[in-house]
């Protein structure tokens, strides 16, 4: 059950921790001018909940059955009825436990982010002077705080179905391998509703912070104000709000009420609108700029283009009749990898290149970075684009041996091509690893503001010591005043009071 582990690990243990845990904890206080997070102890507590979660997942993988037998969506009765998935009993239970731990950890984290952003902003830092990165993380934290309790409760119910033999998700009169469950009267669809009520917002939890970071990088390297800052904030909020009422699009053919499906279809179509506005605003930010094609900028442009592809295939799937055909095929797999890998991970990588000098006081190598971008971008499309074609041919996902189905054998060469691309993509990450580790020790020293950026973190020392700032930051304007007509330089940091003060800042830095 490799794919379950791949999905779980990537989503819950790589993307969410890096984005929320790593970047969130590091960047939020810096960007709003705070010394630290609001609740450092809660933070530690959240961190220490991660380890039992990791432990459970790894144990689950080495149990007989090699991980849970029911896929990462863990649909009951398969995930609950022990006799229906013989051999994977303990693995599935451990997986559920691990998910509960990670849910609790993230919930504590999100409370911390919200409190920090609401309470600890530096003087002058209004909500509408916060960089998009902070907005992205703020909205994400709110989403997590509302959606995660639902998943955690559902997981506890599933755990109790498995261990205490309750029947939340088990209907009456079923039997697998001649064994009936101890109790019944439950409803398997209930799990799907609860699960997707969290797991659709989870997609946005993974992408909103990346969207914010990309907005900041695009503006900085276009040397131009972010186009439509307020609409950007509103559209992030709209995506989050709508994100709570679209979960049913994962269940078009699940057997739920078909009229309900129509309303989910409409809300899903609508969520494309704020996403589209963001894309147009990003393009608008670049238009008329003076583009510095550094590595983080390349990754940001890559993010935007991959997000367009992922978004468009999302619209195609949101049409329920079409979904009948492509549901549970590789088309879905392609879509989610464009959104989660193509967009989210490209954004995260750009962000690592961007904030590396702040974190370690040294620059990363730009040529290696560009090579890394090029290879990742090419191989990423080589790996995931053909999945659309496979899906259109009806190639099913989650098959151990899909070639048993007729008409599938002819797709074998395409699959081999994708495998080579995936290997190439993995190899390209070695370049990144070398660059990252090497630059930590031998990269050229970076000063406080190597990219001539405006936001607060760039006026702190690189790397920032304990307490982040060596002065009390006071904020005078928004973070996107690039190429301001009053200034001689093409940036105008948030801490500088008057345009005429710009010279002093240069000296101080």
């Amino acid at each position, binding site marked *: 059950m490799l794919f379950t582990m791949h999905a779980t690990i990537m989503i819950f243990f790589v993307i969410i921790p890096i984005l929320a845990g790593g970047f969130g904890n590091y960047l939020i206080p810096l960007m709003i001018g705070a010394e630290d997070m609001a609740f450092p102890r809660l933070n530690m507590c959240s961190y220490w909940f991660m380890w039992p979660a990791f432990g459970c997942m790894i144990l689950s993988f080495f149990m007989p059955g090699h991980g849970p037998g029911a896929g990462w969506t863990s649909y009951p009765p398969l995930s609950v009825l022990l006799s229906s998935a013989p051999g994977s009993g303990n693995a599935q239970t451990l997986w559920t436990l691990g998910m509960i731990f990670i849910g609790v950890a993230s919930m504590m984290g999100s409370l911390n982010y919200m409190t920090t952003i609401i309470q600890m902003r530096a003087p002058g830092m209004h909500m509408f002077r916060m960089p998009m990165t902070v907005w992205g993380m703020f909205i994400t934290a709110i989403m997590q705080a509302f959606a995660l309790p639902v998943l955690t409760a559902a997981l506890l119910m599933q755990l109790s179905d498995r261990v205490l033999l309750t029947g939340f998700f088990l209907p009456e009169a079923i*039997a*697998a391998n001649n064994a009936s469950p101890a109790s019944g009267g439950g409803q398997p669809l209930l799990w799907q509703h609860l699960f997707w009520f969290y797991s659709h917002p989870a997609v946005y939890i993974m992408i909103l912070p990346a969207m914010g970071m990309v907005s900041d990088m695009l503006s900085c390297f276009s040397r131009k104000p972010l186009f439509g800052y307020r609409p950007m904030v509103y559209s992030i909020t709209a995506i989050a709000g709508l994100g709570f009422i679209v979960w049913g699009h994962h269940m078009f053919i699940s057997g739920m009420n078909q009229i309900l499906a129509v309303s989910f279809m409409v809300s899903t179509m609508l969520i494309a609108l704020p996403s589209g506005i963001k894309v147009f605003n990003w393009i608008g930010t670049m238009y008329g700029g003076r583009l510095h094609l550094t590595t983080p900028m390349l990754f940001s442009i890559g993010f935007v283009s991959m997000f367009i592809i992922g978004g468009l295939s999302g619209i195609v799937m949101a049409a329920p009749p079409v979904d009948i055909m492509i549901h549970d095929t590789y088309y879905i797999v392609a879509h989610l990898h464009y959104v989660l890998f193509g967009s989210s991970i490209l954004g995260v990588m750009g962000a690592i290149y961007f904030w590396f000098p702040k974190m370690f006081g040294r620059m990363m190598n730009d040529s290696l970075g560009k090579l890394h971008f090029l290879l990742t971008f090419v191989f990423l499309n080589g790996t995931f684009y053909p999945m659309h074609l496979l899906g259109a041919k009806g190639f099913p996902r989650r098959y151990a041996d899909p070639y048993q189905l007729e008409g599938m054998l002819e797709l074998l060469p395409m699959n081999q091509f994708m495998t080579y691309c995936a290997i190439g993509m993995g190899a390209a990450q070695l370049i990144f690893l070398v660059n990252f580790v090497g630059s930590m020790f031998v990269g050229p020293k970076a000063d406080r503001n190597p990219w001539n950026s405006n936001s607060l973190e760039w006026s702190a020392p690189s790397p920032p010591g304990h307490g982040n700032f060596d002065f009390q930051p006071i904020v005078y304007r928004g973070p996107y005043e690039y190429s301001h007509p009053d200034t001689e330089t093409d940036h105008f940091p948030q801490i500088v009071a008057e345009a005429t003060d710009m010279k002093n800042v240069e000296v101080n830095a």
Partner: protein
Amino acid sequence: MPESYSNAGNTIDYLFNGLHLLSALILVGTMLAIGWIVWKFDESREQAQHIHHNTRLELVWSIIPCIILVFIAFYQMNSWAENKMNRPTIEVGGQTIPKPPLVLVKAKQFGWEFHYAGEDDRIQTQDDVYIENELVVPVGQDVVLQLESYDVIHSFSVVELRLKQDIVPGMIQFAWFNATREGEMEIACAELCGWGHYKMTARMRIVSQSEFDNWLSRVTREYSPNFGSDDGTP
């Protein structure tokens, strides 16, 4: 994708292709725009413009996509209704009632059972005839299937008919289609249902009405109620 065997399937294909054409246009348009911007506004320019927003432009690119999206949403509702909501009907004594199912499909780990009505023309009675792993239906007729599961969630899927419906244990689901051509195809399970999920397949044959009648009466005649029950299936 494989050729469609029904009109409803053709509509889905039409929607699928239409949406892809639209997506391709948008994709090419935005990519060209990004490419042109990257090429045009490079570092050789003296200064970037200091613009924060442009209300008129922003209204345009909010309203036009909004109209397109709402149009798509309404445009495909009929097809959804036809496939999943409006079950075919028949007239009985001047009254319109939903057409009764021709076959009761029962899914289990890891295979399919197809129960046909026996002499009384009604399924789920004593004289039902059931066969495993082969579904035979007449061409050019509204065929209604009743879907049930013995154990976990399965999904009844026939790519050629653009038909896919999850089968949730404890619930009764209906699916219907009207095949326009005769042919043979494969039924697959499209919802992960355990280790043997990938081999949970069955044959489907679409035949002429007379061939179907002959086949059904032959099967009914040869059928012995004990057949198949010795392997423990209910």
